[in-house]
């Protein structure tokens, strides 16, 4: 029961910056980034690169967008935090003592391009920072200003200098060594590291990051024009261990391949880019030898099935949903290897599940007969409900959920599935009747086109209820369309999906690699949260001991955070020996900035409708 340690992902914190900076990149940085690589030693565990941050910060601070963000209550909270106030005080001190704006110093030093690499040396972690300044003079001036300020504060009072070739290496108490190379500044907590940098500068060594085979792939797997990018070689991270077995079956099913990819990675790359109101993040894991080891990796076979794309996803989007996720798994293979993929407790938990499934599927063996029939693509959809058949909106209001499965022998199996559906309904009804004499669910099948939609709902006494509750959200439904089976908690949603599937042709094109996707619609998310605002507030009151007013404030923060979200998309899959994940968060922040100067009449469009 010893917990395994988690890998440190160096850039996790840095990745959060761009969320608040939504300004288009104009400064091309690609051309010059290579040269910094040429001076970074190649024995680093990993590196982080930030490009063009200075210009971005300038633009942001000057923009209307900044004013807009600052007016958000959430921002107000952050800005009044004591830590932030402390930081501002330090900045003020600095500016007073140097007579220069801190921002210009920052820009002069780190604003163009910064490359930071780290490794574990004999004496502990060794960090090397190489930064490109706008010019030699700027660099000199910035450094001087910092030295002056530090002297005044009594920090870093003693310097030692030594000459190495054309350059002067200054070191402070063995804690910091740095050197100026033209308009480039290199600093490190290790003097020896500076020497290695200079070796590369002088050409005495060619073991640079630029030439490193180990990191060469990073260039391919990084977003172009990235604001931040990073790469790390996980085998060199001390205590890097990914737990082999996962605790949660659903977690394993969804993210199991990534567990594997992180474990077997030769190189992990991450990059983030901001363009317009969008944030894009890409993660890539370049798989190494471990992934070739057939014996070990065979258990992950279930995660990389062969698939035949059919355009269903695109049709679904047109219909408008809250969120959907599509994963492509060979379920039978996954199930077969579940003991290898899950901890024994989690695997034990599945016994109950398979028992229920067997009852539901009327005696057909779940593992040997049901699962192999299921095709690789599983789609789960959530959509806010309209509740047309009810007297009022239920509280809480739960979105409808549906699962869409592919069934290999749909025609033969569909009857069994329909029977299973009614069996499950029957079991639920029997259970409720025994306990409380509660209402049973009544089948009300209907036809959508030429598709039978099997659906059950509670009796009319319940639908007339003027204060509908949780149960009113559920109208379990089932339909078989072509080779797809739709199981839904909501009849509305089932119908929408059936309509989306009408006329969809069976896929015949060549197969492709499995790709998982996830999409969330901002407006729909805001809508469902708003509908359930009271429940969220009450929950906050009880959990945090708040008054109603305080709870509303906190929930308000949540709503503020989501106010500008358009949508969120994620895709993940394996391309050759690289596992990739791409995330895109779209906000309306850029259009807001633009429309600030628009005439008053445009105000109506400004507010994002909830």
């Amino acid at each position, binding site marked *: 029961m010893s917990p395994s340690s988690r890998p440190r992902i160096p850039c996790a914190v840095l990745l959060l910056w761009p969320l608040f900076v939504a300004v288009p990149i104009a400064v091309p940085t690609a051309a010059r980034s290579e040269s910094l690589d040429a001076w970074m030693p190649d024995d680093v565990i990993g590196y982080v690169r930030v490009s063009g941050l200075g210009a971005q910060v300038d633009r942001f601070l000057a923009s209307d967008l900044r004013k807009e963000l600052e007016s958000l209550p959430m921002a107000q909270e952050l800005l009044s935090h004591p830590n932030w106030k402390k930081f501002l005080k330090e900045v003020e001190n600095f500016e007073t003592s140097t007579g220069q704006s801190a921002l210009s110093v920052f820009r002069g030093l780190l604003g163009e391009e910064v490359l930071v690499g780290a490794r574990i040396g004999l004496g502990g972690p060794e960090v090397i920072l190489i930064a490109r300044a706008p010019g030699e003079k700027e660099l000199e001036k910035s450094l001087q200003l910092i030295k002056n300020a530090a002297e005044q504060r009594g920090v870093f009072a003693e310097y030692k200098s030594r000459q190495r070739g054309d350059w002067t290496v200054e070191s402070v108490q063995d804690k910091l060594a740095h050197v100026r190379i033209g308009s480039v500044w290199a600093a490190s907590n290790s003097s020896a590291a500076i020497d290695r940098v200079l070796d590369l500068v002088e050409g005495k060594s060619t073991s640079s990051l630029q030439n490193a085979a180990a990191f060469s792939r990073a260039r391919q797997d990084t977003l172009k024009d990235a604001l931040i990018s990073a790469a790390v070689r996980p085998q060199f991270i001390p205590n890097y261990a990914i737990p082999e077995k996962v605790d949660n079956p659903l977690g394993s099913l969804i993210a199991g391949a990534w567990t594997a990819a992180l474990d077997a990675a030769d190189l992990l790359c991450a990059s983030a880019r901001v363009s317009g109101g969008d944030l894009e993040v890409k993660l890539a894991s370049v798989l190494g030898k471990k992934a070739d080891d057939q014996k070990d990796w065979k258990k992950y076979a279930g995660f990389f099935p062969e698939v035949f794309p059919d355009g269903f996803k695109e049709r679904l989007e047109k219909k408008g949903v809250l969120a959907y996720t599509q994963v492509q798994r060979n379920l039978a293979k996954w199930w077969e290897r579940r003991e290898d993929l899950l901890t024994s407790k989690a695997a034990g938990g599945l016994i109950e599940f398979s028992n229920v499934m067997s009852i539901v599927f009327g005696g057909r063996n779940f593992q040997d007969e049901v699962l192999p029939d299921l095709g690789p693509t599983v789609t789960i959809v959530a959509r806010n409900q309209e509740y047309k058949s009810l007297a009022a909106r239920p509280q*809480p209001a739960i979105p409808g959920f549906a699962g869409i499965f592919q069934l290999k022998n749909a025609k033969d199996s569909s009857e069994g599935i329909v029977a299973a559906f009614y069996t499950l309904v029957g079991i639920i009804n029997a259970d409720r009747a025994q306990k409380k004499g509660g209402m049973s669910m009544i089948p009300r099948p209907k036809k959508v086109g030429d598709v039978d939609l099997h659906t059950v709902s509670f009796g009319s006494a319940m639908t007339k209820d003027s204060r509908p509750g949780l149960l009113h959200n559920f109208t379990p439904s089932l339909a078989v369309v072509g080779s797809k089976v739709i199981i839904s908690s909501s009849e509305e949603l089932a119908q929408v999906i059936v309509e989306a599937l009408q006329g969809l042709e069976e896929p015949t094109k060549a197969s492709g690699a499995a790709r998982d996707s996830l999409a969330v619609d901002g407006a729909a998310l805001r809508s469902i949260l708003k509908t359930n605002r009271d429940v969220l507030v009450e929950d906050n009151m009880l959990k945090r*001991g708040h008054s109603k007013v305080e709870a509303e404030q906190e929930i308000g923060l949540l709503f503020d955070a989501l106010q500008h979200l358009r949508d969120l998309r994620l895709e993940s899959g394996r391309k050759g020996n690289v596992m990739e994940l791409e995330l895109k968060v779209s906000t309306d922040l850029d259009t807001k900035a633009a429309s600030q100067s628009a005439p008053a009449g445009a105000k109506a469009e400004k507010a994002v409708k909830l």
Partner: protein
Amino acid sequence: MIRSARRLSHAIRSPSAPQEESGAGGDADAGLEAYRPGVDGPWTRDEASHLARRMVFGAPSDLVARILSQTPSEAAAEILAEKPENEDIRFTSDISRQVAGLDGAQASWIYRMLRGSNPAREKLALFWHGHFATSERKVDNVRLMLRQVDLFRTKGAGAFEDLLAAVARDPAMLIWLDGNSNRKGNPNENFARELFELFALGIGHYTEVDIKEAARAFTGWHVKADEFWFNERAHDAEPKRVLGREGTLDGGDVIRICVEEPASAEFIASKLYEFYVHPAPTKALRTALGKAFSAASRRTGEFLVRLLSSRAFFSARTRRALVTTPADFAVGSLATLGARANAGAVARSMAAMGQELLAPPSVKGWEMGEAWLNSTTLLARYRFAVSAAGVEGDKAEQDLGARWDGGSQLTDPVAEILARFFPERLSPDVEKALRSSASGDARLLAAGCLQLPEHQFF
């Protein structure tokens, strides 16, 4: 008897007399007379905290201050008087009714105990909940359980007969005691038995025949679609004889007859006494209490005000005479500190301490007194103490989410916290041990206060 009477009156006349442990009865009427500050004894933070701890949960400092500005009976009456509920409570009760499961319902009751405008009513409702102990585990309907608690809130301080009559018709109670099985020709004695034995009379004041006859009177008192339904077809309308009275009695009649028995007044009054004042009243005291209850027209609120502003209540032997129930311990500690917490987690902690709201172990309710304390529950209390005080670095957290400012608003946090929990001053070596274990840290001190043996009594 006489010897003990002398001891009691001795204790009342000289408040500095050593605390007596054994139950004394005796000159009880004198004990029930109003306590006169300055004449019968002092009126300090100590007395006010004692009143607060008993009437509500814990001793919140603003309440203690308010009490001090009034006379004992004014204070008792004011605390018990019903005030309109605040917006927070109205909002959460409404939603909990619609949405919550058992844990949500427990959480919303704890929230109400902590933040409601009527904590004394909540405590009294908790008393009635333990008295008419009904468990959600069998009722299996959270809405009905919450309705029952509401009943205790609204009628709990009124006439006992009204409360009893309402409880006999309460759907949760009917489900709990198999009301629907009670039919003409085949009566189910469950409710009638508990009515006499546990709810209204007490053992020894009725016969088995009374139970059988009373059961017949309640036939047809059924529940349908979560509401009370008088099932006429199942009701036995023939003549019956209960507790010496004859007639075509129905349930309401039986309740009235029962309540009019002097034994009933004694039974209820003594139970209230044991919950609010001191365990194990003597026979003579029980008689006196019964008379006082009757004199108050068997109105619980009126009786309580008199009882809790009486000389007996403020006597030395009554101080710290009761063992803190989990509710007093958990909710009371938070209230005294002025801390907030996750209401659901508080409910779970209380369950670990042996008191699970809305799910008492049996119709007998919870066993009070020393039974609350054993090794398992004591460890649970220690855990709660550490979490509630927010001791830094202690990862004993159980999602209590307790937030307390650590007394940072006070000029002398350590002294103030000590005074809140132990206004009567601890003995010197105990105080020394407590202070040194805290080394000046207010949070450690608070945790220590909660963990002291002294705090397990109130």
